[in-house]
């Protein structure tokens, strides 16, 4: 239980998807012009990550890892299917995103309209595939740990995008040099937020 909580807190603050690993930057930069769309997209990412990471964990554990297929019979014990990870993970992610798209369209048509193309683009958001690949690399020990990691990463991404959206809304009234306006200043502010988040490295849980 302690371990799960540890992983959860670490993945929100210390291993933040945006500030430590730069995952999901493209939609982060494109959607963060207003807080409302950012909240919508952020919640969608939390949901997708929270589901795909545990499912991919199970897939990895019982089918893909070297030796994973031993439950099917002793002759499969040294089959290593890990090279199929990319394609299978993407397949799971694409189907989950399709599901989220249908749910959002049903329950909040205005959010669906305002997110536009960026909702299906969650499927190619590097944060989602990155979450599964990091889970595979870090070799978590249980579904609980994998879920904690997935939800935590999603919440970390959500914090980052809502934060930058709030700042960008305010900065429209500031005197930014023309060449820095828009994209340039967003990069620099994200860098500064990254330095701020580094202060969490000292947390000992």
């Amino acid at each position, binding site marked *: 239980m302690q371990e799960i909580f540890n992983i959860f807190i670490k993945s929100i603050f210390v291993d933040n998807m945006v500030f430590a690993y730069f995952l999901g930057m493209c939609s982060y930069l494109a959607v963060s012009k207003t807080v409302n769309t950012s909240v919508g997209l952020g919640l969608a990412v939390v949901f997708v990550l929270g589901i795909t990471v545990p499912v991919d964990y199970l897939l990895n554990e019982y089918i893909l890892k070297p030796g994973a297929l031993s439950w099917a019979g002793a002759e499969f014990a040294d089959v290593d299917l890990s090279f199929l990870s990319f394609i299978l993970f993407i397949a799971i992610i694409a189907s989950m995103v399709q599901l989220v798209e249908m749910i959002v369209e049903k329950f909040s048509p205005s959010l669906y309209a305002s997110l536009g193309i960026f909702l299906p683009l969650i499927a190619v958001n590097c944060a989602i*595939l990155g979450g599964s690949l990091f889970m595979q690399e870090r070799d978590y020990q249980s579904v609980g740990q994998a879920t904690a990691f997935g939800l935590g990463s999603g919440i970390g991404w959500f914090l980052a995008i809502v934060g930058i959206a709030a700042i960008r809304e305010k900065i429209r009234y500031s005197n930014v040099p023309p060449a820095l306006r828009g994209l340039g200043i967003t990069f620099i502010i994200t860098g500064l937020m990254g330095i701020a988040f580094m202060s969490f490295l000292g947390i000992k849980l």
Partner: protein
Amino acid sequence: MGAEKKEREPMFSPKNLKLVTKPLNLNNPITVQVLGICSALAVTAKLKPAIVMSISVMVVLAASNVVVSLLRNGIPQRIRIIVQLVVIATMVILVDQVLKAFVYDISKQLSVFVGLIITNCILMGRLEAFAMGNKPWPAFLDGIGNALGYGLILIIIAFFRELFGSGTLFDYQVIPQALYDIGYKNNGLMILPPMALITVGVIIWIQRNRNRELIEK
């Protein structure tokens, strides 16, 4: 029937060459199209991984562009994203296996980011925007051009980060020992993620100052 034979565009016509040169500056995938940011920041702490990454992206992008362009008339509208993803994923798996076989230590440094080439927005972006509507040779050139633009920015970022962050270039000590003796220290912050973001911000600043038409209103 009176059908005229359409003039074939010469292989290296000015129009085709522009496909290679425009992404180097005015249509740069990272600083103008805002694609491929994630990997550009993550692998640029040193020059070697940055170059290996650029070459990998170039191979995947050029190959996928050509394949999708060849298939473009046969892909049904509804599943085109899935088909594009499958083409990209196959190329990436191939490149990943080659990297693991020939430059294992660098592939360890790149870790998940080779797999993440699949979700690298440059690939989906160029496949959608160009390969789906153009012939294979221009698609190939477009892939090479965009990969060169991407690689250029990666090398610039990695150059400064490695030089100021570790005092080395390509792992060769470049800053002379004499400077260290009088008190110069490596700027450790440059190796850390936040400085990559700020470096890109500065590059965008300089690029937009020199090309006024890129400035946003």
